[in-house]
C-alpha cells in the first residue's frame, strides 16, 4: 500500500507557511475559467480532474504550480474523453509559439 502524492495530511518536513500571495497571471485566470466552463457544460466532473492529478507524474505534481497542475489534468481528461488529442494540442501550441515569437 502506498499513499497518493496528493494525500499529504500529516506529512512532516515543512517549515513556516509562506503567506505571500500572487496576483493571478492571465494564463491562470484562463485555466480557472476554462475549468469552470467545462464543468458548467457537463464535459467533466471535478472528481475526474482530481483523479487525473492523482495519476500524474509525482515529480511533476510537486514541481508544477497549482494552475499548471490544473492544465495537466484538464488536458489528460480531455484526451481521455477523446475530445482533443495531444497531437492537435501540440500543433496548435506550435502555431501560437510562432506567433508569439521566441527571442
Amino acid at each position, binding site marked *: 500500500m502506498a499513499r497518493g502524492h496528493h*494525500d499529504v495530511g500529516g506529512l512532516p518536513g515543512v517549515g513556516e507557511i509562506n503567506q505571500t500571495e500572487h496576483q493571478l497571471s492571465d494564463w491562470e485566470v484562463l485555466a480557472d475559467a476554462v475549468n469552470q466552463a467545462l464543468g458548467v457544460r457537463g464535459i467533466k466532473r471535478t472528481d475526474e480532474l482530481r*483523479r487525473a492529478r492523482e495519476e500524474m507524474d509525482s515529480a511533476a505534481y510537486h514541481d508544477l504550480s497549482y494552475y499548471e497542475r490544473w492544465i495537466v489534468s484538464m488536458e489528460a481528461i480531455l484526451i481521455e474523453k477523446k475530445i482533443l488529442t495531444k497531437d492537435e494540442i501540440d500543433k496548435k501550441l506550435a502555431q501560437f509559439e510562432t506567433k508569439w515569437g521566441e527571442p
Partner: protein
Amino acid sequence: MGRAVNEASARFKLGDRVKVKFEDRPGHLRTPWYIRGKSGWVERVYGEFLNPESLAFGHNGLPKKILYLVAFNQTDVWYDAAKSRDKILVDIYEHWLEPTGGDAP
C-alpha cells in the same frame, strides 16, 4: 442540516463510535491516509451524495453513499500529539466506516 436521510438506510447515527477502515485500493479515494485505521465518533449525518470514487472515472456516481462528519481526538490520531482536547473532523463516506468492536483497544 443536509439532505433528509432515511433513518433505516443510514448505518450509523449521532454519537456512534466508528473506526475508519484500514484499507487501500486503486482509484480516487477521498479518505485521507492519516485517518485510516483511526477511531472516532459520528458528529453529523450529512446524508446521501454521489460517490466520488465512481464519478472520478466518468460513471454516474450511483449508488449514492451516506456521508458522515466523524470527529477524532488529536491524541488518537497522532501518536506523539500533545495532550489537549483538540479534535480533527473529517467528512467520511459510510463504506469507509465500521463500528468499533467491544474488544478494540
